[in-house]
């Protein structure tokens, strides 16, 4: 087991966002969490990344180490857990290359950094063409590619992806998911994905969880969930 989350609870003031959810991910897996807007999907990823505080009693362990002992930047730099945030959140004032470089801020393996830049450019050739351009001038698809590439540079043991399909045309969406698959295959990167686009997510992932109003209500293999009548009704449009 690579990541284990137990009884994860998060509140925003009086509002409870997560009511004690538990799930596990094994090394090399692709797992998705599907759910409606406001179900707590982004909150789950932000808690793992330590961007937001969790309630006492929550446990999150990664390779046996408690994530609660790490600050947000150390989760990335020491554990190799990267996070593609919702809406990409690129640094629009920096160039494509600078966005990739910044993600290696704490890395000291110079030669490997060069290799990884090469890997990102071989997965997304469009980024190499645009490497001196400001990230703010990229198209939506290119921005998502850069967001994935940037996460790959910062850490590729476990990649957390928040709605990578958002705002992308179907064809672009497919190419982003193909690239993620390639990263998972060739680098052994474990992927945890949260998505509103349940069909896309379940086709891509091996397993899935369904999150509803801060609680996990269903889990199973992707085929099972795709065939589940409740999931069909609520998330797959009948």
């Amino acid at each position, binding site marked *: 087991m690579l990541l284990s989350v137990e009884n994860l609870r998060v509140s925003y003031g009086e509002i409870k966002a997560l009511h004690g959810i538990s799930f596990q991910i094994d090394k090399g897996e692709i797992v998705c969490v599907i759910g409606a807007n406001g179900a707590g999907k982004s909150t789950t990823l932000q808690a793992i990344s*330590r961007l937001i505080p969790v309630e006492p009693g929550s446990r999150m362990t990664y390779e046996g180490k408690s994530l609660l002992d790490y*600050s947000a930047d*150390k989760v990335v730099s020491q554990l190799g857990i990267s996070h593609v945030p919702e809406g990409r*959140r690129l*640094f629009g*004032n920096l160039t494509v290359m600078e966005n990739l470089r910044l*993600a290696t*801020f704490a890395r000291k393996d110079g030669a490997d950094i060069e290799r990884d830049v090469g890997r990102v450019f071989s997965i997304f050739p469009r980024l190499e063409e645009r490497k001196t351009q400001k990230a703010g001038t990229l198209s939506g698809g290119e921005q998502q590619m850069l967001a994935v590439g940037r996460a790959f540079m910062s850490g590729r043991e476990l990649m957390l992806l928040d709605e990578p399909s958002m705002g992308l045309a179907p064809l672009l969406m497919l190419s982003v998911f193909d690239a993620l698959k390639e990263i998972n295959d060739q680098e052994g990167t474990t992927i945890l994905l949260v998505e509103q686009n349940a069909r896309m997510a379940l086709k891509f992932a091996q397993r899935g969880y369904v999150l509803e109003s801060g609680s996990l209500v269903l889990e199973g293999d992707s085929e099972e969930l795709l065939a589940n009548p409740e999931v069909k009704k609520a998330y797959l449009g009948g």
Partner: protein
Amino acid sequence: MIFFQNLVNALQLGSFYALIALGYSMVYGVLMLFNFAHGDVFMVGAYIGFLVSTGLLTLANLGAVALPTWLILALTIILAMFLTSFVGMLVERVGYRPLRGAPRASAAISGLMIGIFLETFVLWLGGPKRRSFPALIESTTYELGGVIVTNKKIVIVLVSMLLMLALHLFVRRTKWGMAMRAMAYDYVVVPLMGVPLNTIAALTFGLGSALAAAAGVFFGIAYPVLDPYMGIRYGWKAFVAAILGGRGSVLGAALAGFMLGFIEIFVAWIFPSTWRDLIAYSIILLILTLRPHGFFGEPYSAQLRL
């Protein structure tokens, strides 16, 4: 000729304002707060420069070490910048970091309190009497076509510009500068890049304070009298320059600093000098009325342009 004479004086005064304004602007750009203690950090920098230079001169006079004056000058600038950067980092650690996420007025009040603390601390330590800054540059006067230029002014203006260039290169070319620019753009996701926010915050305060210390030493060399309240007088004016340049704009802060120097000097040339601030700051008020976000700032945006 008087015009050129004033130009030289304006460049020197503008150097002080620009160096101090950069600190305000960087901190605002990266952390979205006005460091109201920054003027007093400039004052502390001047006093540290005073202590360092006096100490080194004493050593040299005792014959303990052979120190030529130019080396004492260089060491004074470097050590004052280095030591004052720690004062700035301490201000961040004690005065601002615990208040992150608190209402912004709290940080402003905290900054003002730290400013008062620094003033009274220097007052307590050094007494109310004004201190004469040792003459680190033996004055030589050159006359160029009727314009009188001292070697002090040349050194001050040149080194100030070099420091600004160095800051520009640091922000543009290093990974720390890149992290500062990223933080100015989107604070929240910077840790996801493996960048420790607190380190970059401290660095920003440290850099700004080091530049203020350089301004303090140059101030001591130019008008060789220091007092614990000099930080308020010059700090607030530099703050005006930072606003005029556009909040968060480093280039703007530098240019507006020089512009402020020009306006002050040229107003004093035309009008009685007691009217100087009244007229100079009326002009600036007028500019800000016409351009509320300054020269390089963006309306309703707090993003740093470096």
